[in-house]
Every structure is written in C-alpha cells, then in structure tokens.
C-alpha cells in the first residue's frame, strides 16, 4: 500500500515538474488588467480604462497626445498632417496624411484611409445612439471636401484647445474603418475593431483575453512587438503572482502604498506611477439642509485634511487636490499653489469647522446621508473622511452599495454627499458637466452630473463665454475665474488626485517617457518592446 502510494506521489511530482519548462516567455506582450471583461472595443462606446487603452492601440485620431502625455497643450499631428481655422473660428480644415492604411479584417483587405472614414467616424461619435461622447460634438457638421481633406463646422466659434480635444486620440476622436464597420455590422465591430493603429485585432475570448497582432502597415513603422495579449484578471493577488512568475509582463497595480512598496522589493519588477488619474471630489447637495448653508459646507471643507486622506491611500499613488480640477494637466485649471495663494484651500482646521457649524445653527453637529460605492479605491478615502468629520461633530451615515447601484442612486438625488472620481480631457468638459446649472441631475435642461444642484449665473456665463472664446489664453482665464467662484461657493470639496499604477518586468522598454496618460494605463506603441 505504502509502496504504491510512494510511487504514485513520485509519478505525480515528475509529471508536475516537467511542464515547468513549457511556458517560457513569448515575445508577445502579456498585459493584465484588473477587470472581468471588456464591453466595447468600438472607441465611441469606450468608457472603462481598458477600453480606452485598447482603442489607443488600434486607432488613431486626427491629432494625438504623444505617448506618455495627457496635456492637451502637447497635441501633435496624427492622421491629419496639418489643420487651419477660418477667421470666424467656426470652420476647420484638416489635411490628412496620404498612404495611411487601415488594418485588414475578417473578409476585408487593408485599404487607404480617406476623408470619408473620418466623416463616418465623427458622425458616429456625434450620434447619441452610438456614442458616449455625443454631447461633445453637438451641432457640428463634418464634410469630406476631397479624399484627403475634412471640413468641420461648429455652431459657435471654438478655440484650438477645445477643437483639438475633440479630434484627438481620446473618446469620440478615434477614426474607425467605415468599410469594416459596414461589412462587420455594429454588433460585431464592438468585438472586432479595425483602425489604423500599431496593433490589429486578432482574437477575442470573452471573459479571458483579447489578442492583437502588430500592424505591419502602420504608418509610423512596424511595431517592435509581434503582438499584445490583453488579459482580464480582476484579482490583484493573481496579477501580482503572474508578474512575479513572469507569466505576465505588465499588470495593472493597486493604488495602495503598501502594495507599491512590496513590489519595489522584488527584483526584475519596476513600478510606474503617473497622472492624471481621476479627480476625487465631494459634491455637496445644496438642495438639502443643512448643506444649503455656505457655513456648513465650509465647515465640512475645514474638517477634512487632504493630506491625511492621501496618507491613507499612498504618497505615491495620490496627491492632495484643492481645485475643482487640476491645473497641472488642464489649461484653465487652478494649481494647488494658486488656490493656496487665493486663500481658498480650506486647510484642515477642526476648531474652525466646529465654530462655523455653531454659527450656522448646528452647535451639536449634523448627520448626513451618503450613498457610496463599494469600490475600495473610493471607499478607503471615504472612510478616512468619515473618521475625520466625526471629530468636527459631522456624522456620515455611509450606505455602501455596488458600483452600478451607486451610479443609479446618485442620479436620483439619493445622497447628500456624492463622492465622485472622474477625469475629463478639458476644463470645458469638467465645468459643463459638473457645475453648469443646465447639467443639474434633476432640474437641469440637459442633466449630466451637477450633483450639487449648483447654480450661479456668473459661473454659467463664464462657462458659456469661455466655450465660445477662440483665444486660448483668454479662454483659460475665464475657466480659472469660474473655478475661483466655485471654490468660494463651495458646491464641491476637492480631495485628491489619484495616480495610475502599473508594474512591469524590467524586460519592458516603453519607448517613451511615461508622465501621464488619459487611458490611465501605459500606452503600448510601435516603439514598445521586450528586451531579450
């Protein structure tokens, strides 16, 4: 009996040991995202970071943010080699590069990009039935003047900053293949994207991964990597182990400092933290007492130490935020230093918070109802805020729900404080969606995300005027003025600016300097490579 058992164990051990040699590294880049799947690979429907990251591999915009930068001021030509604006500021002419080839697809051969594809893509981005970004293109018309010239007309004059943000490699700005879309159909195109980017779609395995192959016809040159495998791995610990065993080359990291510190200890693994990440803010519902009183809102602001919140998250993975959106990445945003100089930083002062509450008529403190998502990246800082507010006599009745329930409930006005983490590519988008009275979630003419029910005619006017201003410098000034007024009225308490975290093997060569990225992930370009 024992002999048999020993033999069986040895046989099992030998069988188990042998395969260790069979999974040596391939040259394809293996990337793991912390998601359980991908909803859409059509860029106009991309909303999750994985979808944006995939879009930036497969597609191009007319212009682009260079890899590693998220600052609209850095925009450079991409599919368009040049652009001009007419004097009225409403008509834009984009001249396309010649010889840019679309990738082939199931049943379709590669063909040259023309203005027709650009017009088709932008019209799709404009249609609310097919795009998450339709409001960015409202009232615009797109015309193919000739095969290499596209004319875009806007209902109002528009600055270069705003125009380029609409046609860059983000959101609705990606150019898709018209022929592939018509041949595959909308449903299939969601899982079989066809663009002009450095990597072409290869295979989609629902719930597991999506694979890409190098686009040999890419107009900037053939990619160094033969392919990329994007894997869906929601569990952080398995991603970490996969990287340590070198079964993966790049993984989405955790925003926890302890994880970052732990990863730094492993040889052959490198950590990258970069911006812009999402802006974490608390929207205060001004329609519900006691938050209708400015002094109560100020008390809340003084009772929260942004530094303590950042300490609870991680010094490398978050930075304190004092402006409604950060000037570091967006023209027209205020930097923390500017807010500080204006005296609107509301630095932590619990005694001042208590005094303001008493002056507002609440000497015994207040209780506020908060619906909050279960996502730990948001819940952890909120728990720190809850503890801090308690010291000032402000009790948060925190009700934690699933993330989709959270999004549904906050839009039904169910929460007195809405903790929101988001990023928008322009100051105009931030101000329009979160602070314009028309965007009020219940009373607005075009409800978007004004959770505070904030309404200030002066701010509305500044947002509208800035939107029409063609001079980028004057426009940025107006946006700053709007931000200052918002900080005075305090419908929002800025908390922190998150930073994206990835870890990768030291074999990886990015091919650029990674400072920031709008997809919240490292761009994979034609220059990205794996060292032997």
């Amino acid at each position, binding site marked *: 009996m024992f002999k048999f058992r020993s033999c069986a164990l040895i046989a099992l051990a030998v069988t188990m040991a042998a395969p260790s040699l069979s999974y040596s590294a391939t040259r394809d880049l293996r990337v793991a995202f912390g998601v359980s799947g991908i909803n859409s690979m059509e860029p106009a429907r991309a909303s999750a970071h994985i979808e944006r990251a995939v879009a930036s591999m497969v597609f191009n915009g007319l212009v682009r943010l260079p890899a590693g930068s998220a600052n609209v001021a850095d925009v450079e030509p991409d599919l368009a080699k040049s652009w001009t604006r007419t004097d009225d500021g409403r008509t834009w002419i984009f001249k396309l590069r010649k010889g840019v080839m679309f990738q082939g697809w199931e049943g379709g051969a590669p063909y040259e990009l023309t203005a027709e594809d650009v017009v088709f893509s932008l019209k799709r981005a404009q249609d609310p039935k097919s795009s998450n970004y339709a409001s960015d293109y409202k009232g615009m018309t797109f015309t193919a003047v000739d095969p290499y010239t596209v004319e875009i007309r806007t209902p109002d004059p528009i600055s270069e900053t705003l125009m380029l943000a609409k046609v860059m490699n983000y959101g609705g700005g990606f150019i898709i293949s018209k022929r592939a879309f018509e041949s595959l159909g909308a449903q299939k195109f969601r899982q079989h994207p066809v663009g002009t980017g450095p990597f072409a779609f290869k295979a989609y395995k629902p719930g597991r991964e999506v694979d890409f192959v190098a686009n040999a016809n890419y107009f900037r040159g053939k990619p160094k990597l033969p392919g990329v495998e994007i894997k869906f791995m929601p569990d952080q610990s398995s991603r970490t182990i996969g990287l340590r065993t070198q079964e993966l080359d790049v993984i989405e990291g955790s925003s926890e400092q302890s994880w970052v510190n732990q990863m730094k200890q492993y040889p052959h693994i490198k950590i990258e933290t970069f911006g812009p990440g999402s802006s974490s803010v608390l929207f205060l519902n001004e329609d519900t007492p006691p938050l209708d009183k400015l002094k109560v809102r100020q008390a809340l602001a003084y009772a929260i130490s942004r530094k303590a919140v950042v300490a609870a998250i991680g010094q490398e993975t978050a930075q304190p935020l004092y402006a409604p959106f950060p000037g570091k990445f967006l023209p027209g945003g205020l930097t923390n230093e500017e807010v500080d100089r204006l005296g609107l930083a509301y630095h932590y002062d619990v005694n001042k918070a208590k005094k303001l509450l008493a002056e507002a008529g609440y000497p015994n403190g207040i209780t506020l109802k908060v619906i909050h998502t279960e996502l730990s990246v948001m819940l952890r800082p909120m728990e720190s805020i809850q503890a801090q507010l308690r010291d000032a006599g402000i009790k948060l009745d925190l009700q934690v729900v699933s993330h989709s329930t959270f999004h549904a*409930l906050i839009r039904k006005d169910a929460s007195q404080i809405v903790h929101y983490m988001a990023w928008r590519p322009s100051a105009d988008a931030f101000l329009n969606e979160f602070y314009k009275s028309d965007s009020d979630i219940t009373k607005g003419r075009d409800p978007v995300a004004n959770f505070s029910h904030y309404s200030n005619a002066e701010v509305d006017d500044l947002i509208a005027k800035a939107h029409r201003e063609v001079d980028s410098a004057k426009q940025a000034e107006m946006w700053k003025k709007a931000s200052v007024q918002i900080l005075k009225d305090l419908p929002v308490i800025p908390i922190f600016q998150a930073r994206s975290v990835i870890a990768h093997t030291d074999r990886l060569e990015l091919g650029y300097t990674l400072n920031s990225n709008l997809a919240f992930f490292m761009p994979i370009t034609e220059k990205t490579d794996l060292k032997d």
Partner: protein
Amino acid sequence: MIWTISKRIINVIPICFFVYTAVFFLLRIAPGDPATAMLGDYASASAVAALREEMGLNQPIFVQYLHGLIGLFKGDLGISLASGTPVVDQIRAALPYTLELATASLVIGVVLGVPLGTLSAVKDGKLIDHVSRIVSLAGLSIPSFVLGIILMLVFSIYLPLFPAVGGGGRGNWYETLVYLTLPSLTLGLIMMAYVTRVTRNAMMNVLSEDYIRTARSKGISERKVIMHHALPNCLVPLISLCAINFIMLVSSSVMVEIVFSRPGLGRVLVSAMLQRDYVSLQSVLVVYAFLIIVVNTFADILYSIANPRIRAK
C-alpha cells in the same frame, strides 16, 4: 429507474422556467441597470437613455420577459448586454473549464479522502486518526482563495513547477492538465476534508455492524474485511456527498477561477452580476439549475446501483 429519470427530465422544464422568471424579475427590482454600469462616470441621463434604447431595455418589462422566455425555449440564450456576444458562446467557452475543474477536484477529494477516512476509522484514537482529523478540520476551515494563494506561492513562485494564472488552451490535454493542477488541488484538498469526515463516520458505523464481527470471527484478514465488506457499505453516504459536493464545487469554483484567473462559468456569472448583464446572468443561472438536476439524477442512478434496496423499491 427509467420512470425516475424521466420524471427528473420532465422536472427540468418547470425548474428552469422558475429560475428564469425569478432571476428576471429580481434583477430588475435591484437599482442600477446595464446601461448605467457600462457608462460608469459618463452615465448622464441622455447617454443612459440612448444606451438603454440600444439594448432594448426601454421595451415594456413583460415584452422583454416573453422575448427572453421564447428564446430560451428555442435554445437561444440571447446576446450579452455587456459584451454583445451570444451568451451561448460564452457558456460554451467557459463550461468545459468549470466542469473539468469540478471533476478533477472531486477525483482528488475522493482519491485522497476515502483512504484517509478509512485509515482514520480503522486506527481510531491512534496518531494517524488525530492527524487525519486535524487535516480534515483545517480543510473545512480554510477558504479556497487563501489555499489557492498559498499553493500559488509555493508551487509557482518558490518552486516554479506550475503556471499560476490562466486556463491553458483547448485541445492540448497536457497543457490542460498543467493549468488544472493547482486550481483542482485547491478545491480537491477542501473536498478531501469533507470526504475524510464522511468516510470515517460511515466506516465507524459499518465496523460496529454484526456482519463485520462475523467476517472477523471467520478469520478473514483485516484488509479483506475493510476492503470487501466494510468499504462497499460506506459508498451510499459517499455518493450523496459527492453529488452534493459536485454541485457545490461547480458553484464555488468562482473564487478559484478568479484567484487563478482561470476561465469558467463562475467568472461569467460574477462579471454579469457586476455589469448588471441581465441576459447573461439569467442564462448562466438556468444552466446552473440544469446542471444541478443532471447531477442529482446521475447520483440517484449511482445510488440505486450501490444500494440494492433502493433498486428494489
């Protein structure tokens, strides 16, 4: 027997219908919908309304219900709201991974648990019995995701013998086996704990029976008494346990699938839940219900083979 099987098969229809109906309406009572989940922080009222229309969620609820039900009877499980792929394709891709994981775990559990439980009963009160009870208690107490991570650390990092993540490709049995080893060991060791306990208890009861005493008094060797007289009589409770646990393994494989980033039905289910993908969720739960009925029917057949009294009834 044929009548029992036929009854079970007929039962599939009302049970699947009930599961589909209950899940359909319960999901829609919960706040949040797939459009909101998909759009995330871009979920403005107009964007949600447009996406809901595209997904067909703006149709009256009973129209949606009937549409789905008719599809189900035709064998069409619908199109996933989240990914836009046919649900049947998702299930077809995931089910083999889950079934092979559950089967391998069950085999490991039985192969290790039956001898350990038997030994424990035979050596009652001895060191081996204490060790087996401690091992069994540890197996019952340790969560699968903790054991999974421990096995990954030991066999993928410190002793790099097995892949830590993924499920391997289809069609290559060797690769399938390699990728299956750690996940199936994770569930198999937990399964072993259950099997050890049940086997030990059953064996203790059987060993005190008169026919065992008779066999021993006839001078039959102890090994023969255990293997030929006692062990077959322990099979009846074991079959029930295996049937129940196979279902449990299928449904609890989700944690292991997530920890090992292994494809499977559990991952499809969790992903559908997170994304409020009603269509996928309904279909996967109907498949689960179907599996439960099939396994129970199979257990009944085995049960009657192992127990002649049931067969006689």
